């Protein structure tokens, strides 16, 4: 299937200083893509290149098969975009601002903004200048989503949102995926990407160091398991199982760190009468650390 977002050798330098280097990226349709990296890794640069606000100094980027330089206007018309530092006109109410943008876009369902605002618990009659940071961010999310774009490009969308609103936002993102749309969102907070993304790209010092499905990343990841036995603990036997990286006996319990599947471990341990199993789902935080931990 043809990629919705595609970059080849994409690079951007500011006055000779590289901010993004040789990025090859393919995002298939109907996918939520999490773009991860610490601040300054080049996430915002990538997103602004995709939105047609910057021109690449190397390589090229395509959105929906359209070149972001040559077909910039067509790209900008078709995407929903939330900048990393979203700012709206402080003297307008939320309603006026969204009406203005709806007019600039054209063909926006007039009730869509109100419906989204309600879901995000946002009062649109308030002037934007008097809104809290979180509420302004909600206005930004509404303007990115209210025309149901085929591609959503969101730079740190959950910044400043309280957890309840975050959950509602993630629901919106999933609905967009269900409608066959593609979502590209950046974050430096892994748990929120993990909760929603199908694929992640990990960016480090301007280079894309990994692109992987979340499921695969998790499969490769280190899993932590606590096994409690009714009888004596078979520590030596468990140590020989492939994939077991660490083993820490603790009374009748054993704490293990396993890489990949736990099938073999459980097969070996089962005859020793396990009274309880506690598993800790690996999170991207740990996966992430292995990328950045390498130095």
């Amino acid at each position: 299937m043809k990629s919705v977002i595609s970059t080849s050798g994409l690079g951007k330098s500011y006055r000779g200083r590289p901010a993004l280097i040789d990025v090859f990226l393919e995002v298939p349709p109907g996918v939520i893509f999490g773009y991860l990296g610490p601040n300054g890794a080049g996430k915002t640069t990538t997103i602004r290149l995709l939105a047609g606000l910057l021109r690449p100094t190397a390589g090229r980027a395509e959105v929906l098969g359209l070149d972001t330089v040559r077909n910039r206007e067509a790209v900008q018309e078709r995407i929903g975009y939330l900048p990393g530092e979203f700012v709206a006109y402080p003297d307008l109410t939320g309603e006026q601002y969204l009406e203005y943008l709806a007019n600039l876009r054209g063909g926006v369902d007039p009730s869509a903004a109100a419906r989204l605002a309600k879901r995000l618990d946002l009062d649109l009659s308030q002037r934007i200048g008097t809104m809290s940071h979180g509420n302004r961010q909600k206005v930004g999310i509404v303007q990115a989503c209210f025309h149901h774009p085929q591609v959503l490009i969101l730079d740190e969308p959950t910044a400043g949102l309280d957890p309840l609103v975050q959950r509602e936002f993630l629901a919106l993102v999933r609905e967009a995926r269900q409608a066959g749309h593609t979502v590209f969102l950046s974050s430096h907070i892994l748990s929120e990407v993990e909760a929603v993304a199908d694929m992640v790209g990990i960016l480090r010092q301007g280079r894309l160091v990994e692109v992987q499905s979340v499921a695969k990343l998790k499969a490769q990841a280190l899993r932590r398991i606590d096994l409690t036995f009714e009888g004596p603990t078979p520590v030596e036997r468990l140590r020989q199982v492939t994939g077991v990286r660490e083993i820490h006996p603790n009374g009748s319990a054993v704490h293990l760190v396993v890489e990949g599947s736990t099938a073999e471990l459980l097969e070996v341990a089962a005859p020793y009468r396990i009274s309880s199993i506690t598993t800790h789902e690996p999170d991207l935080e740990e996966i992430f650390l292995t990328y950045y931990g390498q130095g």
Partner: protein
Amino acid sequence: MTIVLRNVFTKSLRDARRGLIGWGISIVVLVLLEAALWPSVRNMAELQQFLENYPEALRKLFNLDQFATGTGFMNAELYSLLLPILFLVYAIGRGARAIAGEEETGTLDVLLVTRVSPVSLIVQQAAALAVAVAALGTVLFAAVMTWSPVFDLGIGVADAAGGSLALVLLGIEYGWLALAFGAAAGRRAAAVSVAAALAIAAYVLYAAGALVDAIEPWQPLSPFHQAIDGGPLGAGLPAGYAWMAVGAVVFVLAALPVFNRRDIAAR
């Protein structure tokens, strides 16, 4: 749906309305105060003699030979310096804000990621600025037409219209220059500085041309000269007005390809 938020042009005019009310009131009051002085100036016994004692350069610069008529009085007192400055300050401020201001505050990003192209953005903002400056010129015209009969200044409709037109064109030229530079460079303060510096340079050229014979041939190059030479009240429709319009258009056209191709700065 309100009409004022339909596009960048109408939104920009909406943003201008409050400032226009303030500037408009100032102009009406200014014209009133100046016009109210006229009866006592006219009745000064030795006005002509008093004026002849002025240095020749000043008499030239402010067209003081015409000072004894209501039109000449207003030309010297308001249209030669004070009103041009007001129109320039207003237009340059708005021009610099139109694009560079939006970029610096961070509202430009979302604006461009719609159907609005950079070229259309400049054109709409330039049009809105022209309308706003023209509105200010209309207020000036109305004020002069109102106070002239009250204080017996004897300024005709065509003269008052020509005076407003001169200032509107001068304002648009430098307002569009500020807009164009702001669009090309993305910095509001720099746009204000460059436009203001070039306006001052134009005035210096105009003034120097009046004082120094060797510079006089260059004087017509100055937009100030184009705007206020021989008037502007009572100057008719000099060819210089067309040059101001041409200059304004050239600035905007020069900015289009630059803004269209450059990076938009993140906030």
